């Protein structure tokens, strides 16, 4: 089985986000980038499938720091690693990259495309459906377990309220991974150093084929809400103050 995993680099949310001058993008110059967490799970699921039944895993990374993440993917067991060039200093739009992913999948007769169910730049999880549509093959999003049996896949999808659904589908397929069957493994520094010698392929993007349908007019940073108040650790005084606060808000009689 040939598996393609998509690894997207996203701004590190622990950093301080600042808006670009035109107020329509994040200023990416001073940001640190990290691998999208869901994509990390997709990679783990691909490696687990490889370990369970044999597969050839190709990791395709997009964005700043792709090289570092691809070395990590190689250290974890990816057989081929490719950096897909993307527009510098711009967010990774699923709509833009879907055609490139689909083209790579087609060129290498990929049986299974895995990506994270969403990313902070694609909170609606559009990548898997777009790629599925372009390849004209089934797609499922929000998976938390994938088992391969020849060309058949059993895929468990997480739904709300603890409900899980299991699908059976034939490859080729595109899956948006919510969590891998096992938490992503740790790769030691010595393995990373070894993997730093892995040759990294390069791929140029395909035109998306879509007209631009809408534009961002304005972007706003989250507004700092009210902060918490610590009432102390003495039960009596805490109770008094709590009653006082509730009364002040008209929620209790003093």
């Amino acid at each position: 089985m040939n598996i393609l995993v998509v690894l997207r680099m996203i701004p590190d949310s622990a950093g301080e986000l600042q808006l670009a001058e035109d107020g329509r993008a994040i200023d990416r110059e001073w940001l640190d980038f990290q691998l999208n967490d869901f994509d990390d799970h997709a990679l783990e699921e691909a490696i687990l499938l490889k370990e369970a039944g044999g597969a050839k895993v190709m990791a395709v990374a997009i964005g700043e720091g792709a090289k570092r993440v691809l070395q990590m993917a190689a250290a974890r067991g990816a057989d081929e690693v490719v950096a897909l060039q993307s527009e510098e200093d711009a967010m990774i739009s699923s709509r833009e990259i879907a055609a490139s992913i689909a083209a790579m999948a087609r060129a290498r007769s990929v049986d299974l495309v895995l990506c994270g169910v969403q990313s902070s730049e694609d909170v609606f999880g559009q990548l898997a459906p777009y790629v599925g549509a372009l390849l004209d093959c089934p797609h499922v999003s929000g998976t938390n377990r994938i088992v391969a049996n020849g060309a058949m896949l059993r895929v468990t999808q997480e739904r709300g309220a603890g409900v899980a659904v299991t699908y059976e589908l034939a490859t080729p397929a595109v899956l948006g991974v919510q969590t891998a069957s096992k938490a992503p493994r740790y790769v030691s520094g010595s393995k990373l150093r070894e993997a730093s010698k892995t040759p990294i392929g390069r791929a140029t993007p395909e035109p998306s084929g879509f007209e631009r349908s809408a534009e961002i007019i304005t972007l706003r940073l989250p507004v700092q809400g009210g902060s918490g108040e610590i009432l102390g650790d003495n039960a009596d005084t805490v109770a008094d103050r709590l009653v006082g606060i509730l009364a002040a808000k008209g929620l209790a009689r003093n």
Partner: protein
Amino acid sequence: MASTLPLWILVVAALVLTSWRARRYAVSLARAPAAARFDQPMRRLEGVMVAIGLHRKMLRKPLSGVLHAIIFVSFFVLFTATIDAFGSRLFPGFSLGVIGGETWIAALQDIFSVLMLVGVGLALYQRYVLRPARFEGSNGKDAAIIYVLIVLIVVSLLLEAAARIEGGADGSWRPVASAVAGLLGRAGISAPAAEEVFYWIHVGAILAFLVYIPGSKHRHMFLAAPNIYFRNLEPRGLAPAVPKQREAPGVDSLGMFDWKQQLDLLSCTECGRCQAVCPAYAAGLPLSPKTLITDMRDALAAPTALPLVGGVIADETLWACTTCRACMEACPVEIEHLPKIIDMRRHLVDEGRVSPGLQDALSNLTRLGNSMGKPSKMRARWTKELGFPVKDAREEPVDVLWFVGDYASYDPRVQEITRKVAELLTAAGVDFGILFDAERNSGNDVRRAGEEGLFETLAQSNIDEINACRFNRIMTTDPHSLNALKNDYRHFGAAFEVLHYTALLAELIADGKLDLHVADGARVTYHDPCYLGRYNGGFDAPRALIRSAGYTLHDMPRCRENSFCCGAGGGRIWQGDDGVTERPSENRIREALSLGDVAYFVVACPKDKVMYTAATDALGATGKLKVVDIAELLVPRASQALDMPAVETT
């Protein structure tokens, strides 16, 4: 003499049997990888003299030290009796008589037979009446068998001499045996027959002892001295490098340990001094440094199908260690527990077998160079609230390059102290600078968590940045960084002059460059951080600072080399408290509270501020004891004096 041949047969049989019982160890040692422990013979010999001749570490526990010294000296004196017993019959005509075997040597044998019995008596009293907790997990049967054999050897020796005296021999040099002879006479025992019987009991017990030793902790009679001789002479803070010939970074079978590491296993006396000082053991975690060693020793003696890591030694056992080094400091035979733990952790890390907490921290360190997952650019954020700019050491030359460290830089509970240190340096007119976002975690605990590859990456990055700066000395806030920069970075050929901030501040005060408010002698206690004290000998500067600031130091019972770890080191701070019955930090705060007259618990390590503040909170002792960094006690005269809280003396 008619008994020569039977004795020869007995002796040869015993020697063959002994060698047979020791064969597995000998083969394993012979096949073990090399270890460079043959340098500096005089220094090595001197260490053996101090350790054995003076019983230095042994006497830290007075009763065991004294009783061991008695048994040890008696053994050497009575060895003359053994030479006599075997020599006289194996080689007819041999006698120690010419050098005083029947006069002064006889008198010494007579007296030391009694002393040996006194020594064994004290040992029995200690083991069966006092029952120190450190013997828990030791092999009691082994100890009992040895007591029986020693008593048998000594009593038969005395009785043999007594029977000889009763039969007419001169007893004037053997007062004890003469007294026993009187008793034998009254009991109507026939002298020549009894002498023969006691002789054979005596030699039989000695040979039984010999045959028994290879499978017993009493191997240490032969191995303690070599094990001390071949001890590690490298700086204590230098973790062992991964040998070039090793293919993977870690160790997952006993045969991969070099011969000295294997010799350690065979030298263990099961005294449990390591267990008694181990913070992980005290916390209820599944680690006793003693059983760590004896479990591996047993696996060396009787090969098992279990893997070493995750079988003979459980993963949790390895992760429990704080690398505080108290076990190695306590070991009278210089067993090296930590290199083994670190090597086995290296195997776990290489296999990806790490706890989620540790995985998070290591992943953050890989990605961002700090364990907290904070961006590098926020590393120097603490300087913003200072009233003065801090020099960028990458941009301009400085006298002191300050390596701030992760906790001091990022942790909001510690940043206040970091600023205090900056203010003190400024008040003393020190020309200093920092690396800003180019600093990375020093890798001290990364290395000790077994992540050698990541350690190398972090260390190399720091060394490159430091080498690009112009400075005279490096100062660190964190004792862990101090240790890495001073010791571990030698692996990369980096030789920096590195000081802890307590050493630099003590120097500034001694030079009259820092004028302080002097308190009125209020009593405080001080916690020696493992990586400052035990690892790097920094015991005195912090104490000098406390005195200079006008406080009276009331040390806790466990201080200096015997300091008790806070529980955060070696990567423990990144792991959960699962299985902990009493946090080491709380154990320590209880110790400070029991002093009864101190208001401040003074620390000199950013992690300690975090650990002990949490511990005093958890114990509800914030009203009785305040955790302060040493920098907080030092108030320049130009600033407002510190308001000392009132002490509740109990």
